[in-house]
């Protein structure tokens, strides 16, 4: 259960807010790290912790794009496909990533290593095209750089990018 793995983090999250319900997004991040995606157990864990109905938690998880309701690969390549990135070749980059990995958009490779998604603007348009992989930004991309990134990730050798890379930073922030 989420509470067994992150007791200190959950205590620190609850301490931030006058109303426990405010903890729903932060606790969902922890649940996603624990289960890999937001599955039924994740929903029921979060609902139990926050005294919410599971359907309320499910609707909240579904509202936000960073929560995955289906299993995803170890590395989730979320390529910005909005206009500023698209003016600099983002659509071609999405095609190239899918072709290289042999998957459709939103698909996951058979070895469970990669998922490719498109996302809305990530506020890095001066370094377009770009993507985030497990919440880390990779900017000023082209096909060659994307290929090189995929190769490094395949060997789990990408300058510290790990599963739940961004969530590690979030957990770090809870240590005051």
């Amino acid at each position, binding site marked *: 259960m989420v509470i067994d793995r992150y007791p200190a983090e959950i205590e620190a999250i609850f301490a931030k807010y006058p*109303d426990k319900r405010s903890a729903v*997004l932060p606790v*969902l991040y922890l649940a996603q790290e624990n289960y890999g995606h937001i599955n039924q157990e994740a929903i029921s864990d979060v609902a139990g912790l926050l005294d919410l109905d599971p359907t309320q938690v499910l609707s909240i998880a579904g509202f936000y794009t960073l929560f995955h309701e289906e299993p995803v690969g170890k590395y989730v390549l979320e390529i910005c496909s909005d*206009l500023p990135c698209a*003016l600099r070749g983002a659509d071609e980059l999405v095609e190239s990533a899918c072709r290289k990995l042999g998957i459709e958009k939103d698909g996951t490779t058979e070895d469970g290593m990669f998922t490719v998604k498109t996302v809305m603007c990530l*506020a890095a*348009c001066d370094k377009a095209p770009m993507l985030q992989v497990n919440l880390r930004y990779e900017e000023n991309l082209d096909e060659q750089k994307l290929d090189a990134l995929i190769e490094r990730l395949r060997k789990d050798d990408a300058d510290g990018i790990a599963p739940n890379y*961004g969530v590690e930073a979030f957990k770090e922030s809870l240590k005051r």
Partner: protein
Amino acid sequence: MSLILLRHRDIKGIHQFDVYSANGGYDGLKKALREHAPGEVIDIVRKSNIRGRGGAGFPAGVKWGFIPKADGPKYVVVNADESEAGTFKDRELIEFNPHQVIEGALICAYAIGAQACFIYFRGEFMHAARTFESALREAYANNALGSNIFGSDFTCDFYTHYGAGAYICGEETALLESLEGKLGQPRIRPPFPALEGLYGKPTVINNVETLANVPPVIINGPDWYLDIGTEKSSGPKIVCLSGHINNPGNFEVPMGITYRELIFGERYGNGIPNGMKFKALLPSGGSAPIIVEASLDAHLSYEGLMEHGSLLGSASLIVMDESVDMVWAAMKLVHFFNHESCGKCTPCREGTFWLDRIYRRLLSGKGRESDVKLLESVAKQMIGETLCALGEFATSPVLSTLKHFPEEYYDKISD
């Protein structure tokens, strides 16, 4: 002129408390605490006419002045949900000049009598916000936060909160709903957040860049600030340049510079790459109407683009060269708004859905002659009918491209 907001470009290491302090940092807060009653701080901000930098342009001092004077819990919420296409200015401030944002929020908290500040980061900023998180730790360690700040009677805490990917949470009441753990959907107003905001308490919500303007105004006074920019638009503005531009990035400029200078000036965008010609400009990401060459001499200010049928907004300039299919560009923006529509009100939910469908039909080569009128009709039925500005934003790319580039639509009709 030295930089006022992007000070980290002039002063290395200003994200650290010691460096920030050694360069006048927290002097604005100290001055406010020692020399001014809370009401005087609001007056200074009102006189300086700092207007909202998130896009709406509402005067910050007026917003602060709406907060009731009675005792009781009040909140300052910093809007760091930066998600408008083409906008990346707040991220730079958060990552490289965090103390100025913290100080601005604290001055606001002192002025309105709040004892807690929240900052709402979009979830994708978890990594970028690490500097901000460590700045908060340093501020606590140096008595700039917590109990009896700098030896005064003022006590204030600062909490960070992370969203999880939803543009609508940048709308201030949707942000409050999201922060309260609910679906990020806008509230019906009134009541306005100044009376019933976070947890039902009086709340000021300001954009990151807006608050970064506050400390220098307290130090230098409103007249200093009014001397920068134009009569109605005082102060500096961070402009985000992206798209087909030689030198993309953030540029801090005094309000009043022309769009032409920003795009073609050597110090700024430095023109269009690959020898291509300028075609069109989105002056505020996806949310304000597109402008063409004839409007480029307009001044960048809250009033400058009004007679050209557009808006300053967040000053996120997306430049497009002559190769761009404007129907495709409008489709990209409409798709964005359809994806980000929260679903609460019918005109936006249905309107963005159908606009998106019609664009897909046009671009798949199956456009019908009636589609052009249909786009216009759907868009016009949304204007003024939606709960928040998102639905109205979605109509901007549609109507402005229809106005300036109708022939590109007719080229896509197959029957």
